[in-house]
Structure formats: C-alpha cells, structure tokens
C-alpha cells in the first residue's frame, strides 16, 4: 500500500481551549506537533504585525521582528504549563487572552534580543535583570483612554520619533511601556536597571535622555502648531 507523505500539516480546527489543554497534557509527539502548528498558524500573523510596528524604529528591523517572533513562540510552548484561562472566562475571549499572553512574552523577548544587539558583552547580566516573562491574566485598564487621538497627530508623532536617536527611541518606549511618560512618574527599578545595563550608564543619565527625547517630541508635535 502506498503512503503519501504530507509536507504541510493538514489544517485541523482546534479551539484555543483544546490547544492549550492538549499542549499541557499531550505526550504523543505527533499530536503535540499538530497542536503547536495550529496555535502557530492562528497567531503568527497578528504577533508579527505588532512586532513589525514595534521594531520599525530600530535598525535591522526586519531581522529583529523575525527573531523575536520565533523566540516568542518557542518561549510560549516552553511556558504553556504556567498559562491558563481565567476561571469562568468565555470562549469568545480566549483569543484576546492568548494575545495578551503572547505580547508579554514578545515584550520580554524584545528587551533581551535588542539588548544583545546593543551590548552583547553585558547580555548575561541583562538577561538576569529582565528575568522570565510574568503574565497577569486579569485585565488592567490603561489610564486616560478617553483622550481622542486623530490620525494627523499620529503621523506627527512618527515624524518626531524619526528625529530621535535609536537610544532615545528605546528609552522613550520603555517609559511608555510602563505608562511613565509624564514627568510625575518613575520607571520601575527593574526597567531602570535594564536600561542602565544596556547603555552602561547611570539612572540620572537615563532620565536626562528621556527628558531630552520627550522635549524633542513635544517641540515637534506641539510647537510646530503654534507657528
């Protein structure tokens, strides 16, 4: 009897719950691979799209996005035992929940991967500072989301961002990631330690760089309107 080997796995539709439960329990290598592939095909495009936007402001953007994307899925499958849907969560929300989990991992991978490109010699110390990604399944609301943003302003910000050095872009986005852009708030100790290790500098210098970058953005976005 002739057996036809399939080079591409058949696309079988599993629910997110089935995939997660299966990945946690499955010992059969072939079934496990099937579940991993399903998960990958379901989420790779969305994660890649986010990473392309995130990485486009940094050098070697395409390779960076690819590398982080791969690392994200590798880490996700390694850490799937620690992941679970919140009790009582509805199936229609599972995609959203998994996306948030993957974003936490992708963010962690970005910090490490980018740090390696900037400062390979301190990479081991930096990895120790960042640690492994920690995921909170509960919704955390961002502050002040009632502020309406219009498209022209978004373009202005991108133009302003293009004026910054790569170091300034990295530092500003780290602050934005922790909702610390405004001058009344401070970066967490962990993130400050990370930036200091990457750039081999002091917290005071990091704050100065952030302030300068923010001033440049404000000048470009808002003062230009006054002319």
């Amino acid at each position, binding site marked *: 009897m002739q057996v036809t080997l399939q080079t591409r796995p058949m696309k079988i539709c599993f629910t997110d719950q089935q995939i997660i439960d299966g990945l946690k329990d499955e010992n059969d290598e072939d079934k496990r691979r099937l579940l991993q592939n399903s998960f990958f095909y379901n989420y790779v495009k969305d994660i890649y799209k986010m990473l392309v936007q995130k990485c486009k402001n940094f050098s070697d953007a395409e390779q960076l996005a690819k590398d982080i994307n791969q690392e994200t899925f590798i880490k996700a499958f390694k850490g799937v035992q620690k992941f679970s849907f919140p009790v009582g969560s509805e199936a229609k929300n599972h995609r959203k929940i998994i996306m948030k989990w993957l974003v936490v991992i992708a963010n962690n991978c970005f910090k490490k991967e980018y740090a390696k*490109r900037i400062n390979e010699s301190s990479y081991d110390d930096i990895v120790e500072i960042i640690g492994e990604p920690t995921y909170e399944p509960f919704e955390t609301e961002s502050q002040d989301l009632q502020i309406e943003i219009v498209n022209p302003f978004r373009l202005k910000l991108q133009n302003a961002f293009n004026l910054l050095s790569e170091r300034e872009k990295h530092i500003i986005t780290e602050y934005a990631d922790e909702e610390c852009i405004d001058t009344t708030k401070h970066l967490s100790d962990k993130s400050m330690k990370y930036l200091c290790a990457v750039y081999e500098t002091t917290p005071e210098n990091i704050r100065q760089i952030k302030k300068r970058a923010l001033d440049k953005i404000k000048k470009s976005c808002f003062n230009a309107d006054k002319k």
Partner: protein
Amino acid sequence: MKKNKSDNSQLNQEKMIEKILRTGGFVLPSSDDEMKEFERIYGTTDVILPEELQEPNFLYSSPKKKQSAKIKELRSNDFAMAARQGAENLPDEVKKRMEQDRRKADARRKRKK
C-alpha cells in the same frame, strides 16, 4: 494660576504622547483597549510573513547560534588559538577586541564591588 495651567498643558501633551505610543505600535499593546485601537489602525493592513515564519519549522530544528549584525564574528576558538600561538601573532582586530572585552569586564567587576 498661570503656572498651573502651563503644568496641566504639559501633562496633557505627555498623556497624549503616551497614548499614541501605546496604541500606535511603538509599544506592544497590552490592554484590551490598546489592542482594539491597534486593530482599528492596523487591522486592515495585510502582513506578508517572511519565509522563516511561513512554517513553524524553527520550533523543531536545533537552535542556530545567531550572530548580531552589529558585532563581528570572532569565535572564542580564535582567542584560544591566538593565546596558544602567542600574543605577537594576533591580528590587530583580535587584539583590539580582547582589550575592549577586558576593559568592560574590569568596569563590571568594579561596579559590583
């Protein structure tokens, strides 16, 4: 009164900047609202996956050691061989790199103290 108005204006500007950074793709969106906003802006943008991401083969192959585009490839074997052969036979590039690494390691040791 004037100073407060100016402070509020600065604060509003900063909040606006932060919001765009968090929803405009500069930072990976983390909350439901940020994801919704990101989807609204970029949802219709179709993404063409690069070849390496078309299939999840990387999950099953042995990890390749990636070289950073910025940093030149100087394998540790080169240093070991250079050390065995003697310092005067080292190329300038290797000597420079060894010196840099030595300085960075010293600086790190001093910081830890």
